[in-house]
Every structure is written in C-alpha cells, then in structure tokens.
C-alpha cells in the first residue's frame, strides 16, 4: 500500500455504499479524495434488500454493469403477512423495469469500493478516523486536520483536507464528536437476526419454491407482523444466493420479558422463528448457520444537523429509523449524490457555500423525516417535521409515491402515509396493484 497522502480535497470516513459512491462521484469530478475504512473488504454487513431505486445512483457512478454481472438474486417484490392479512406486490406492476436485489453486502459493498478506487480515490482500509478539527474549516486557506490511526498501531497521523464526509454508519465518527446524534426514545426497538441454509421461499408468483430455484424464479422479500409489539414488530426473510437472512424487529421490553435468564440470544431467536407458522413451514428442511446470530439495540436515531462548516453526514451516519421499507442503502446513495453535488458547488462558489449547504441540509432532513414518518409508530403525535416530510414526499414521482403507499398499506402504516401524500392518483394506483396472497396449503 502506498503511503497515505498528506492532504486532499475531501476525506471520506467509511467504505460502505454512502462513502464509496460519494468518493466515486467526487473523484470523477476531478477532486482528490481519500477514503478511510476501518475494516478490510470484503466485510460483513446486514441490510441485504435493495429497492430498484439504487440503479440511478449506480448508473451515475458507472458501476451498474459490475453489479449486474455479479449475478445477485433478483427480487420480484414483497409478500406480506400482516395480522392474518396476506398480500403481495410486484415492482413490475409499478412500472419499474430494472430489478430490486437481494445482495450479500460483503460482495456488493466491495464492488462499490473498488469502483471508488478505479475512479481515482485513494482507499485506505483498516484505518480508523479518530476525529477532525473544524475550528478553521472554510476560512481562507483554512484546512481541516483529520486524525487517523491504522488498526493495530498505536501511533496516530494527520491528513489535511477541505471537507470531511462522515459515512461511518452507526459509528457516526463526526456526528458523535460534535454531539449531533439524538436517539428516538419513542421507538425502543431492537433487532436480532441470523442465517439459514436451504430455506424455501415465496416467489413473485405467490408459490413456495425450494432454495435451489432462487436464480430461476425470483423470490420476494417476505415480511410478517409479529404477534407482539402492537403491530410494529415484524420479521424479514430475504433469500440470498447461498443462505437466507432472517431477522426480527421487536420492542426491547418484550425481548427482555420473554428471554429466560441464561438463555442465549441464539436459542431465543430460534424459538421465535419456530413460533411463526408460515416461517416454520419455509424453514422445514432448512439448517441454521451456527454462530450467525447478531443483534443491535436502540438503533433508531437522527441528527440535529447533517452538515456544518467543513462536514456532511451521509447515510446511516446521518440517521436510521426502521428497516421495514428497505430504504437504507437508497438513502445512503442519495446522500452521497447530494453531498458530492454540494461540495462541488461549495468549492466552485466559495462565497455561496453557506447557501449550498443549507439546501443540502434541508433536503436531507426532509428525507430523513419522511422515513421516520412512514416507519415510526405514533408519528403523528410528534409532528414537528411533518410539513418537511410532506415536502420530501411531494418530490417523488407518482410511480414512487404509489409504491410507497402500497408498501405502507401492506404493513398497516398507511395511516401515516395518508397524512404525508398529496397524490390521489398515487393512492388509486397503489390500491389497484396490491394483490391478495394465497399460499397453497401444501
């Protein structure tokens, strides 16, 4: 590995989709970019279900062909069992011509990182960023010293830059340093997930198929409400090429009440999977991947600010809500695009950089608020950002609004959506495209 440069235009913290795409966009515009990644790719990550909205960002980064040729599982749509009501939707019914995907994130994220490298960004893996000093950011000739440390070494070093992009995910290096992160006290949920081999699945045709058909007969993401948690607890079932990702999103209190003292999370997780009849049926011949259970608590948070002099927060580093609508990677990519555009404008028109940053901030916060409004329970009781979320929704096409509405109908969140949307046309289109799901008994 060549030595880390002493200075650059932009330091990107984190090599997930947000960081890699932002680095790609900026490097392609001729800026010098240094991206630090704490881990070594390929590395594990959860969040395997991707909406077809990813493609416009992949096209802009020139990485779509590499993703297509990887041969990830193409997903047909969603199958939802919500309190006994079984319904499904297909992306093709909403006019999407390119597929949604189920991806192994170690591979997917690696492809994006390699694209950033090929675009000219300097990539430093196994290097942790410790902090950045913004005291002279954006002053004339002012630079931002960023302190980093190669993993396993004790000595730190510095690089000087003009902008820092925090794409460090839940770690939130800059957001935490500046005290910008606020946890959602009203959404005290946790997630527990694991992997199985040889699970059957529900395909776009509403039939159950064996794991071996997954590349021939596109699966759906199967989502089911859990009996506990007042309609806000749910499970996912995501077919990958070799395994199946299954996860639970549950109130922390409920998990604590039902988990026996001394019972492992793995044992508890398997017990929950057994208790859901349709999931049990899909897992009939499946094998649990030992040691694959992971969990995260209190993961729902937002940021009081997503940009300031010298920095921008991207993707999960800016905020995270509930993964039910699979918007995480799309939001990461969106924020990468928005930040790259904004940095380019800030560097081209220094006198207007506060203005450009304010557009970025208001658009990002509106979009985060929209995700919160659709995913959080009782959102209307805390509607400070309601108008903002409505505006974010209004800049979605009729097609995109229809899909969001259909997804929220399937999961009983349409009350939230009704208060956001302003397109009766999208409502009608959604209602027509949600179909009943009738799974054959055998």
């Amino acid at each position, binding site marked *: 590995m060549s030595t880390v440069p002493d200075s650059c235009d932009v330091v990107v913290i984190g090599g997930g989709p947000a960081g890699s795409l932002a680095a790609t966009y900026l490097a392609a515009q001729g800026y010098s970019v240094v991206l630090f990644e704490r881990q070594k790719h390929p590395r594990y990550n959860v969040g395997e279900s991707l909406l077809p909205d990813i493609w*416009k960002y992949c096209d802009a980064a020139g990485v779509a062909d590499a993703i297509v040729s990887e041969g990830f599982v193409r997903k047909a749509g969603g199958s939802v069992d919500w309190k006994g009501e079984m319904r499904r939707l297909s992306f093709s019914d909403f006019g999407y011509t390119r597929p949604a995907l189920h991806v192994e994130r170690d591979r997917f994220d690696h492809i994006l990182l390699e694209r950033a490298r090929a675009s000219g960004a300097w990539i430093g893996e196994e290097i942790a960023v410790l902090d950045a000093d913004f005291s002279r950011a954006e002053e004339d000739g002012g630079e931002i010293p960023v302190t980093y440390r190669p993993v396993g070494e004790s000595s730190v070093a510095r690089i000087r830059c003009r902008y820092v992009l925090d794409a460090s995910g839940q770690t939130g290096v800059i957001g935490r340093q500046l005290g910008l992160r606020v946890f959602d006290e009203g959404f005290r949920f946790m997630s527990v997930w694991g992997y199985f081999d040889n699970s059957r699945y529900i395909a776009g045709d509403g039939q159950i198929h064996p794991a071996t058909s997954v590349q021939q007969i596109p699966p759906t993401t199967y989502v089911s409400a859990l009996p506990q948690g007042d309609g806000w607890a749910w499970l996912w079932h995501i077919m990958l090429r070799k395994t199946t990702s299954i996860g639970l999103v549950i109130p922390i209190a409920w998990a604590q009440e039902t988990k026996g003292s001394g019972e492992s999370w793995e044992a508890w997780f398997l017990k929950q999977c057994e208790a859901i009849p349709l999931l049990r049926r899909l897992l009939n011949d499946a094998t649990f991947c030992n040691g694959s259970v992971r969990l995260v608590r209190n993961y729902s948070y937002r940021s009081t600010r997503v940009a300031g002099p010298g920095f921008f927060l991207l993707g999960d580093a800016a905020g995270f809500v509930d993964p039910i609508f699979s918007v995480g990677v799309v939001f990461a990519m969106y924020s990468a695009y928005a930040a790259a555009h904004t940095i380019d404008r800030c560097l081209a028109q220094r006198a207007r950089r506060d203005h450009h940053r304010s*557009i970025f901030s208001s658009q990002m916060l509106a979009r985060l608020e929209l995700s919160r409004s659709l995913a959080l329970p009782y959102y209307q009781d805390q509607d400070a950002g309601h108008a903002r979320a409505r505006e974010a929704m*209004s800049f979605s096409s009729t097609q995109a609004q229809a899909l969001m509405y259909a997804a929220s109908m399937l999961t009983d969140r349409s009350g939230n959506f009704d208060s956001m949307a302003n397109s009766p046309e999208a409502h009608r289109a959604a209602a027509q495209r949600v179909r009943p799901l009738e799974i054959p008994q055998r």
Partner: protein
Amino acid sequence: MKYTDEQIFDALAAFLAKDGAGAESVGAIAPETDIVGQGLVDSVGIFKLISFVEEKFGIMIEPDEVLLENFKTLQALRNLIVRKLGGAPPGGSAAIA
C-alpha cells in the same frame, strides 16, 4: 437582466431534455407539463435543477422555497424566477461566484 417568458421556458426545457430523468420518454416539455409527477425531476434531480436555475438567472433559491408549488411545472418555475429577479436590487444580478 431581463428574460422573456419564452427564453425562460426554452432554457428550462433544454436543461430538462438533457438532464431530466427519462426525458426521452416524456417528449416535449410544455409550460404546464407536470415535471415532478412524470419523474423528470425528483428528489435527486432537484439539486442540479436548483444549481442550474441559480446560475443561469443569477438568483438564489432559499431552502424554504424548494416546494412542489414552485417546481411542479415550467410555469411555476418561471413564476419563481421572475419573482426573484424582480426582488433583486436594480442592476444587481445576484451572482457572487
């Protein structure tokens, strides 16, 4: 700088024909075409459109002006541009690049 409505519409339509998402399938963009509903401009494209309008017409669009009512059609955008140009100090193009 004064612009005729036609100059404004032409500039915006030319920009969207080049940079609008899926412009080739939408065809001619009339002043009343719903450019958001048809997907020509979305939450991503809005960034480039704002920058284009600001630089082309020497105005600044404030965050609270990024509303559907100002961006839904070329007519709405034209109204915003004319309002902002009218509000600028005499002879002062607001450009401070």
